[in-house]
């Protein structure tokens, strides 16, 4: 049962980058469910429970046979809907033999998987992640698979950028962040933290991106979409050119993107990207921006990675309930509130898949 899990199951979660799912078997754990993903001959992605019906060997240790998966132990074959289509040494197939098939959809260059009740899996509910499409905005991201922390710690991290001042000093960190006021709003499905820093010296990263001298207005408009997607509209524009009023023509605009998928209750997969809508054809810049975020421990996300895993270790050792909160945590607390509402609604009303539990 899902009674105490910190994540809803009836939601779309990023499971892989589209490019990662090929004509081979890829194993993932998503929300505690072991899943095997593969691409069918017509190009569609399939996702099955990664345990053979017969003796539970992970199907990902078997191999693809056309659009079906053959178990690597006794040769049982399952089609992309999870139905057994072959059993060894008998002329019939047990009618109850099947593995669970998970709804999957490709959108915004990611494969999204619905670990909950398949009857509720409506592709219209896939989070808005269009900045990642590679069209209007460009950038090459990546994934921290099996990051050793509760996925909500990553959301906390992104919904309060005060930490940039201390974790990312020298790149995007700046005292101005802690000095500027911020505003938090929410809807039933989103929480948004907005912070404008007016007439400041740009921090080193943004000074390079802007490529022009002068003081700037800097913005961070970070939107959480429940249960696990964060998109941050960030940038700088020369001060007094109207950016707070909506004219960003004298600035540069980027977006940090995060789809954070619970792997277990204390680990997650962090799909990230940093995209921009300026110098879009500059491949060198794309590479530099990627390295600025993840670069063998030196990127800003590498810095977060260390903090987040150390924080989880500390939480495991000090199970006090759970933290103290400051006013800077308002965005994170609204995000958590929306997640809690989803999990509570699920406990009351949803139809769990009893066969799979």
């Amino acid at each position, binding site marked *: 049962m899902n009674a105490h899990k910190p994540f809803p199951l009836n939601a779309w979660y990023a499971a892989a980058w589209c490019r990662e799912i090929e004509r081979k078997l890829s194993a993932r754990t998503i929300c505690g469910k072991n899943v095997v993903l593969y691409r069918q001959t017509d190009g569609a992605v399939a996702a099955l429970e990664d345990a053979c019906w017969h003796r539970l060997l992970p199907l990902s240790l078997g191999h693809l046979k056309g659009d079906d998966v053959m178990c690597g132990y006794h040769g049982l074959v399952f*089609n992309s809907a999870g*139905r057994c289509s072959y059993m060894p040494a008998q*002329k019939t197939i047990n*009618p*109850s033999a099947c593995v669970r098939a998970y709804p999957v959809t490709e959108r915004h260059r990611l494969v999204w998987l619905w670990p909950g*009740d398949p009857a509720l*899996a409506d592709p219209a509910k896939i989070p808005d992640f269009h900045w990642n499409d590679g069209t209007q905005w460009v950038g090459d991201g990546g994934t921290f698979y099996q990051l050793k922390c509760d996925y909500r710690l990553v959301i906390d991290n992104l919904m309060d950028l005060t930490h940039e001042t201390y974790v990312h000093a020298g790149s995007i960190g700046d005292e101005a962040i802690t000095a500027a006021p911020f505003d938090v709003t929410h809807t039933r499905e989103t929480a948004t933290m907005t912070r404008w820093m007016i007439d400041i010296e740009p921090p080193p990263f943004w000074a390079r991106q802007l490529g022009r001298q002068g003081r700037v207005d800097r913005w961070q408009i970070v939107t959480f979409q429940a249960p696990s997607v964060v998109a941050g509209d960030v940038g700088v524009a020369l001060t007094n050119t109207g950016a707070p009023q909506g004219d960003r023509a004298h600035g540069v605009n980027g977006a940090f993107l995060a789809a954070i998928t619970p792997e277990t209750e204390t680990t997650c997969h962090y799909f990230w990207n940093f995209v921009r809508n300026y110098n879009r054809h500059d491949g060198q810049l794309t590479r530099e921006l990627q390295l600025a975020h993840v670069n063998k421990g030196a990127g800003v996300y590498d810095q977060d990675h260390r903090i987040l895993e150390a924080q989880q270790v500390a939480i495991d050792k000090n199970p006090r309930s759970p933290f103290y909160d400051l006013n800077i945590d308002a965005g994170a607390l609204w995000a958590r509130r929306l997640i809690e509402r989803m999990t509570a609604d699920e406990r009351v009303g949803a139809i769990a898949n009893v*066969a799979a539990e």
Partner: protein
Amino acid sequence: MAKPIDWISARLCATHELTPDVRLFEIEPDQPFVPATPGSHIDILVHIDGRSQPRSYSMIGHCADGLYRIAVKRVAFSRGGSAWMWRLTPGERLTISKPSNSFELSHGRPEYLLLAGGIGITPIHAIALALKQAGANFRLLYAARTRGGLALADELAGQIGERLSLFVSEKGQRVDIAAEIARLDPRGELYVCGPFGMLDAAKHLWREAGRPAAHLRYETFGNAGNLANAPFKIRIPRLGLEIDVPANRSILEALEDAGVEMIFGCRRGECGLCVLPILETPPRIDHRDVFFSSEERATNSRLCTCVSRAAGDHLTIDTPDRKPTHLHHPGIPAL
């Protein structure tokens, strides 16, 4: 390898007659209600001749109000579960399992054909409502001997309207299964629950139509065959045993009662673990399993002891019991 059942206590809240022979049972579990997916069933411990035995009953509808609903047909020649259920009165205590599902619905198929016969409507009812909710393209063909025997038909007609077609066999109405399969989208699925003859016909016609076996979905509890349940005798020359199989016991149960050690899995005719060789064939064998192919069944060389029966006097079978062998090979000292 069947999953062991976690038994929980429950209370029979109410019963309602759906037809003169089909009764609806509303059961409230003592433990928190576990919602069920369409096609799920619960097991109930019934008491027959002083023994507790599990019987599986498909759940009806969403049961979203915290009650499990099942429907049980009164069968004259049953194994005893039906008669026991029909003697229950509201307020009585029951031992039940949580829902489990061996008849699961695949979502996202382009078309579905649902075929129900008689009391086989119970899981199909829940599947039909789920498909309607999902906005899926489906039809339900529901057959019974009499119009009055079409339990839940009026309610279903109200819910799914023209997607439902009713067939009353005493009026000469028959489902043309072959034609219906031919109409179905090539990637469509067929879900069948009904009498053994209906299932057998559907399986045969599905295969003849060249459809993938994995797209034919059915569920069997191994409780019905072509012949009525009648007592018969089994002989096991190897063990020097002659055992009576009463009308309400299976061969497997009769063997176990007599102390013959058996292995088994599903006990509903699917897995083939309790299969034994037939040495002498009685006039008719009522194969009720879904393990053997029809060609294998026709040879009458083996049978699934958990569900299949004999009609006629004696059935002579063998068991895997062997005398202990000693390692008297030359050069190897006896143990």
